[in-house]
């Protein structure tokens, strides 16, 4: 058999494995090699991180990753043609009627109703893509017999513009404690090795990577547009609401994920607010939050209280 046919067959087998819910062939072989200890362990830890992880009683096992590319379903939105709205997927909606009392004039008319509405399908699509990637990295971590993964980096990008396909990839270093109890699900953290060690000494243990997403479309009504064209300093209620709702949805989703993994809270949450133009005056506001969920295992303070120092250089 030629090399090319061989490669093609491997690719077919990988796709079939993914569809069965398994890892692609290359990943399976890498895990197998690491588990048997045939290869040297790999890690992207710095020397300081290595030392800190050792200080916390853990050792590196190897680099693990999980990745997925998904198509995000389209969501039919509110129509402003007749001033009447309807959306698939439910979610939060706010209405901004024409302040001059006109009702139901169409696109291109001076008067129309504005809508802020939540893109439920979009949120669910991003979450689903993330779930697949997370499941794969956890599977790899379990495969190499790790207790957890630290320093997880996230790559999240839209491949064909917003609302089409989305790549979600996470890469980190698997660690284990020799002789430690087996965990049903390995822990995950986006914190680096040094922070992991400090967290552990401070009485917290990472549980899982948690995410929150809030996506609101702002479709301005005539009231908002008139305000935008004015010369005065004024608060724009519709846009303020849209951004605040996106933030609140993101935080609420994050906190409900914290509850799902039975953690006490999330630390080191990174927030990313993006606005995408959707044509016309509409825009999609997306708030993306990522953090490490932690549990407090000990209430007592640090073994040694932090020493105040004054640096003389």
């Amino acid at each position, binding site marked *: 058999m030629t090399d090319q046919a061989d490669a093609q067959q491997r690719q077919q087998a990988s796709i079939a494995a993914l569809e069965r819910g398994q890892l692609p062939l290359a990943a399976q072989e890498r895990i197998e090699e690491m588990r048997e200890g045939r290869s040297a362990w790999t890690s992207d830890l710095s020397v300081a991180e290595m030392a800190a992880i050792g200080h916390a009683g853990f050792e590196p096992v190897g680099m693990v990753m999980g990745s997925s590319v998904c198509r995000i379903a389209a969501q039919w939105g509110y129509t402003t043609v007749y001033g009447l709205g309807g959306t698939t997927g439910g979610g939060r909606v706010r209405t901004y009627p024409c302040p001059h009392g006109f009702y139901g004039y169409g696109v291109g008319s001076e008067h129309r109703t504005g809508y802020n509405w939540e893109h439920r399908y979009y949120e669910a699509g991003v979450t689903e893509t993330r779930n697949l990637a997370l499941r794969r990295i956890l599977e790899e971590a379990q495969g190499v017999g790790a207790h957890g993964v630290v320093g997880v980096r996230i790559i999240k990008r839209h491949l064909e513009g917003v609302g089409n396909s989305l790549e979600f990839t996470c890469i980190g270093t698997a660690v284990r404690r*020799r*002789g430690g109890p087996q965990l049903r699900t390995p822990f995950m953290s986006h914190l680096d090795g040094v922070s992991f060690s400090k967290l552990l000494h401070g*009485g917290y243990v990472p549980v899982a990577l948690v995410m929150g997403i809030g996506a609101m479309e702002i479709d301005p009504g005539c009231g908002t547009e008139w305000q935008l064209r004015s010369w005065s300093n*004024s608060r724009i209620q519709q*846009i303020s609401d849209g951004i605040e709702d996106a933030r609140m949805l993101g935080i609420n989703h994050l906190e409900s994920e914290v509850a799902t993994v039975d953690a006490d809270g999330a630390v080191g949450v990174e927030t990313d607010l993006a606005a995408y133009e959707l044509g016309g005056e509409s825009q999609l506001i997306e708030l993306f939050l990522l953090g490490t969920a932690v549990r407090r295992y000990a209430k007592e303070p640090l073994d040694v209280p932090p020493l105040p120092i004054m640096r003389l250089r």
Partner: protein
Amino acid sequence: MTVVPHPRADAALACLAGHGGDRHQGRGFSSDLSVDEAVLLKEIGYEPRGLVVGSAVYHLGIQYSNWNTNQEMTDLTRAMYQARQEALAAMERHAEQVGGQGVVGLKLEVQMHSGGHPLAEFVAMGTAVAQPGARSSGVWVSDLSGQDLYLLIRAGYQPIGLAFGACVYHVAHQGMSQWMGQQTQNVELSNYTSALYEARELAMTRMQDEAQRVRAQGIVAMRIDQKSHMWGSHVIEFLAIGTSVRLAAAEHQRLEPEMVVSLDDVPDQGAAPEAASGDATEG
């Protein structure tokens, strides 16, 4: 290979495996605290309650100003101040909802949204914290980090709230004859100097008035931000902002720091000048 005993690592894994642990009471929180901050706040008895935000989007129109006079742009000052107040008030309401007694690590930012309109989003964001069992009236807000708050409280002080004052000022353009007359000399542009002085003083006075209103003893970590936002180089906003504090203990507690000299090359931790961008922060 023998396993080195490590009580903390074993306790942590036991907690993950589902046996015990000294867990938080109440709802799960989100926080943008770093690990260092979370650990230090725990040392002084604070628990995070949640990430809290407030925002206000303002359309900033332009105010007519005289080309050759120094003057405060009172409409813009009012808008910039009011927008921040609204964002802060929304954040405080959110903090109360999640049971916070204070907010640490406040970031109060202005983000310009483009798209053809002079739109500015004022965002207030921080982590709500609380001392379980402690009584509190109202929510204090501070832009101090967890580390600074730890030191402040160990030194015997308590934060009372944020103090800030704003002033948007128009600096006069020079007349042609003046400009011609000065081409061959090095001279102080005294109208420029005095305009910057006055604007800065106005912002600072307003901040101090706010602190006095809540009977603070002082303001720590105060800074003056000086930005032109979207108005061109002759219209400048001065924002004086800091955390007002009061002594909670009978007197200042000495921390007795240990002096250390590092044998490594310590990277220069002094504030790097940000003059390149045209916007400056003074400490």
